[in-house]
């Protein structure tokens, strides 16, 4: 249940503004790829373009190709809804549905795909997903309570459980730990290490130690100035990026000498 992602000359636009320019990137299945770079460099935009979530902003579109195991995600007749069912996403701030219980939050995506599933199937999915997100033991006695009553870190793991409940091919994470304390962050990072056995993971992070800890590959995005499009400067194995990057800009950034 894991697939490769291939971006070929991908340009991403908001209306007439080109936000990201000429990204060529291949992401191997069952790996963790971290995207790093300064704010506004387009890494989140690129991440959101993988499951077409950037299209919630009117006028957003792309040029070039983005493929999931050879399948053109922006091909004619490709429905963003179908894309998003294959590519799950975890957001910067935990966002469990406040009006739903923990149980209902986990199966929210499954209910969309599979309306006739039996109670037992839902129960199985809830347990499997919550175990997969390392949350089962903490919440198994209060599955009918609202998800918004959990701590921030637990809420974020609930969101991960919700995303993996539909068994996506790819899991995108947009700064998943930036609103969490260090302990919760560690829990999520451990989880990412386990999840990569089953899923292709792409994570945007501002925390370079985190990128170094969790990822196999790292892509560095940069921007030349305000109003200019962001670019993928360099992508390589994480240890190469952090020890001997080929580009000067990458070295400056990872060693804290940018600007």
């Amino acid at each position: 249940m894991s697939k490769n992602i291939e971006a070929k000359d991908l340009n991403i636009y908001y209306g007439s503004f080109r936000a990201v320019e000429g990204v060529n990137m291949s992401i191997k299945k069952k790996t963790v790829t971290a995207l790093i770079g300064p704010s506004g460099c387009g890494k989140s935009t690129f991440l959101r373009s993988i499951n077409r979530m950037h299209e919630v902003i009117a006028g957003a579109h792309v040029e070039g190709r983005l493929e999931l195991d050879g399948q053109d995600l922006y091909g004619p007749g490709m429905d963003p809804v179908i894309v998003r069912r294959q590519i799950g996403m975890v957001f910067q701030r935990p966002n469990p549905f406040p009006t739903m219980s923990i149980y209902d939050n986990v199966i929210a995506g499954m209910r969309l795909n599979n309306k006739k599933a039996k109670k037992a199937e839902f129960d199985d999915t809830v347990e499997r997903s919550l175990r997969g997100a390392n949350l089962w033991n903490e919440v198994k006695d209060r599955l009918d309570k609202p998800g918004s009553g959990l701590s921030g870190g637990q809420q974020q793991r609930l969101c991960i459980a919700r995303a993996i409940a539909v068994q996506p091919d790819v899991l995108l994470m947009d700064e998943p730990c930036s609103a969490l304390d260090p302990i919760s962050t560690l829990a999520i990072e451990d989880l990412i290490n386990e999840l990569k056995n089953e899923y292709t993971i792409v994570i945007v992070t501002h925390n370079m130690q985190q990128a170094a800890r969790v990822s196999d590959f790292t892509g560095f995005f940069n921007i030349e100035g305000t109003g200019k499009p962001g670019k993928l400067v360099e992508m390589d194995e994480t240890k190469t990026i952090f020890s001997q990057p080929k580009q000067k800009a990458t070295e400056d950034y990872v060693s804290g000498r940018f600007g």
Partner: protein
Amino acid sequence: MTTTEVRPEPRTAKPVTQLGDRIFAGSAKGAGILILVVLAGVAAFLLTEAFPAIVAPAEDLPGEQNLLLYIWPLLFGTLLSAVIALVVATPLAVGVALFISHYAPRRIAQGLGYLVDLLAAVPSIVYGLWGVGVLAPASVGLMTWLNTYLGWIPLFAGPVSATGRTMLVTGLVLAVMILPIITAVAREVFLQAPRLHEEAALALGATRWEMIKMAVLPFGRSGLVSGAMLGLGRALGETMAVAIVLSVSGVVTFNLVSSGNPSSIAANIALQFPEASGLGVNVLIASGLVLFVVTLAVNMIARYIVNRRSEFSGAN
């Protein structure tokens, strides 16, 4: 064990506050108290004025009937017309509000929003005239059709009124009247649905409608109930439109398409007051007291419904 008695330092009675804070706190408190005073004043007026009618023996009252028997058909007519209006207007208002907040392109949405607000500004007498002059004659055909094919439902039992001045038409006029207020409230709460939760639903592969069901409607539920209650309050108290449109005979019936209908409390007061004297005035005010109590009860029930699931409201 030795305890040294520590005498607390003499402290100033009040913490230091800015003058602006004190003025604001005072005026806010004053406004809150004023609401209570007005409400209590209205209740006191209704009670004292209704009292003579409540204690008077039935034979002294105009029409020589029991006060409850007099008010009951009016209360029934009030509730029936208001419920019809609410049942018709609420789904329509939700649809219009969702279209404005989530479907229409921004420019069209703004124009539509103004238009809906404008509808709210039309005086009720105009709606009444439109109801009796246009809608009533125009709906005779519809009501005949309902009676012919759905006549087995008591609501449409007939015989169909020739003028169209029926309970159904009254309910529809009221529905048009309360549509703008429910729409305006619903639009505001739908627009406030958190972006974060909408994106969560979309990222799970929800279509736009599924996203609305998962993130927008549950979030807006309590606001929507409040809006519907505002609308219901207006429908319950609406006077002129009902007085003009409805043809009244005082019977209690669920038959919506015939010419024999119960009047509503507010319309009845408006129509009877000019000729009322003595105990008759007290009787009318007693019916007003009933309307006051009903409106209050409706609002409290709505509050209760909204609060019952407050744990899941997302407010925490």
